[in-house]
């Protein structure tokens, strides 16, 4: 199966190089002295079975992602009753999340960071296990229960706001800005979805951010300056592969500038924003397409059914409905 793409060859090379960059990132854990794997030689000519192998590889990748999704979903589902019970006991529903386990610091004022949640807000900000928090948003921690004081101060913090955290690391003060998050299930609660059973953490929806349906095989790349020049945008997230079935009217090569005014700064950020919408909700997308800035109004599709595997071929996309509401004159 020969793949076609609307991007130019060099931009594809750039994307491939980006992929190699990610692999390089994983090599950080590799001991020095271990030679990196040799680069695969370019194929001299297409083999007759390339199409079959491509299809097999794509099918295997989809199975792998499905298995991973099942692991994630089951793990969250089985822990949900315990977490809900605990949240109810602690009286902490809907609060902003730091992603830290704290305890009193022995022999010193402050709350010692016992664990940092992997990928959590504090981890992203650079806080490490072993740091001692001595102040939060300018309020110094004092007294015999500094960990409790942190939790009390966090009660007044709204999700998605920034929290200034001063820690002692190796005895020296360091300041971090943590962008706190909402807990799983918060968005549906905040959006007031009707007809849903509300537990302490929110409605009993598919757990957390997990998204299936047309978005499952959507692919995004954080825009670099080089990519930005080519696609006519200096910020945003590039849609390498649009959602299946023409969902949300996105196309390969679009650059998402904003989703209801929120500007995605990375693929993960865009995923998080999109996942905050419930099926059927309306949203406005500001995008760059073929160097023109457009506003799209779209409806969040259902998350249920899995998309059929589709080749990475723009020609295979269904015809795009007429949804462009406004075309800006600021062609870039």
């Amino acid at each position, binding site marked *: 199966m020969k793949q076609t793409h609307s991007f130019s060859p060099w931009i594809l090379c750039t994307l*491939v190089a980006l*992929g190699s960059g*990610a692999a390089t990132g*994983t090599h950080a854990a590799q*001991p*020095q*002295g271990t030679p990196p*794997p*040799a680069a*695969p030689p370019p194929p001299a000519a297409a083999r007759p079975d*390339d199409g079959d*192998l491509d299809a*097999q*590889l794509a099918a*295997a990748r989809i*199975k*792998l*992602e499905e*298995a991973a999704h*099942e*692991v*994630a979903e*089951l*793990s*969250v589902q*089985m822990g949900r009753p315990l*977490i809900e019970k605990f*949240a109810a006991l*602690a009286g902490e529903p809907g*609060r902003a*999340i*730091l*992603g*830290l*386990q*704290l*305890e009193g610091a022995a022999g010193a004022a402050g709350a010692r960071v016992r664990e940092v*949640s*992997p990928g959590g*807000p504090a981890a992203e900000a650079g806080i490490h296990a072993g740091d001692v928090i001595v102040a939060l948003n300018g309020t110094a921690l004092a007294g015999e*229960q500094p960990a*409790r004081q942190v*939790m009390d101060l966090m009660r007044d913090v709204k999700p998605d706001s920034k929290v200034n955290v001063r820690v002692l690391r190796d005895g020296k003060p360091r300041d971090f800005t943590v962008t706190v*998050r909402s807990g799983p299930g918060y968005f549906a609660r905040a959006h007031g979805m009707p007809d849903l059973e509300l537990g302490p953490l929110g409605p009993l929806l598919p757990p*957390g*951010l*997990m*998204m*299936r349906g047309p*978005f*499952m095989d*959507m*692919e*995004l*790349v954080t825009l670099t300056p080089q990519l930005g020049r080519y696609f006519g945008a200096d910020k945003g997230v590039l849609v390498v592969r649009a959602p299946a079935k023409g969902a949300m009217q996105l196309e390969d090569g679009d650059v998402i500038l904003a989703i209801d005014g929120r500007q995605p700064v*990375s*693929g*993960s950020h*865009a995923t998080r924003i999109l*996942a905050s919408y419930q099926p059927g909700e309306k949203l406005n997308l500001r995008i760059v397409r073929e160097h023109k800035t457009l506003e799209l109004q779209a409806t969040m599709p259902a998350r249920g059914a899995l998309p059929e595997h589709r080749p990475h071929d723009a020609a295979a996309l269904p015809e795009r409905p007429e949804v462009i509401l406004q075309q800006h004159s600021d062609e870039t």
Partner: protein
Amino acid sequence: MHNESDPEGDVARALAALPADDARPYDWHEFQRRRARAVPARRVIGAGALAAAVLALAGVAVWVRVDQQRAANLMTAVTHADDAGGAPSWQATAAAGEPRAAERWLASLPGEPAIVRVGTRADVLGLEDHIAQVDDLLSAAGTGRAQAVHLIALQRQRARLVSSLEQVRYAETLADESR
């Protein structure tokens, strides 16, 4: 490779001397060795490796289902725990899970793949959010009068979530590498 911050190679030697357990999950070096060996027939082996990973993850999913019963039993214990008990012990609760090697591996990964697949990324972000929520609940519970049995149950749930995050990120990395 010359490294100005480690001219004598002390850090490199220390890294090389780490026990194999630190290379979890699924022995990353073995994964890299196999990948290098697979270069001449990358696509064929790539599909095979993905299929093997699917089987491994499917096995994990089955294990998770079996473990649901254990979790239910633990929930029952939590529900019926009496109000007696002293201050919770972090040492005891920490023994409920041992995710440190997994967390070191997770910390060594880039924040996200170069090309983000939204479906798998949403799974990763969902797990990360749940772990963060559990950690904050543990902080809140640890400063209150929570019973040790509750904290142990929550720590076990955290360990399970970290393990699942490890699996899902590995699948994400493997899929990214197979492109």
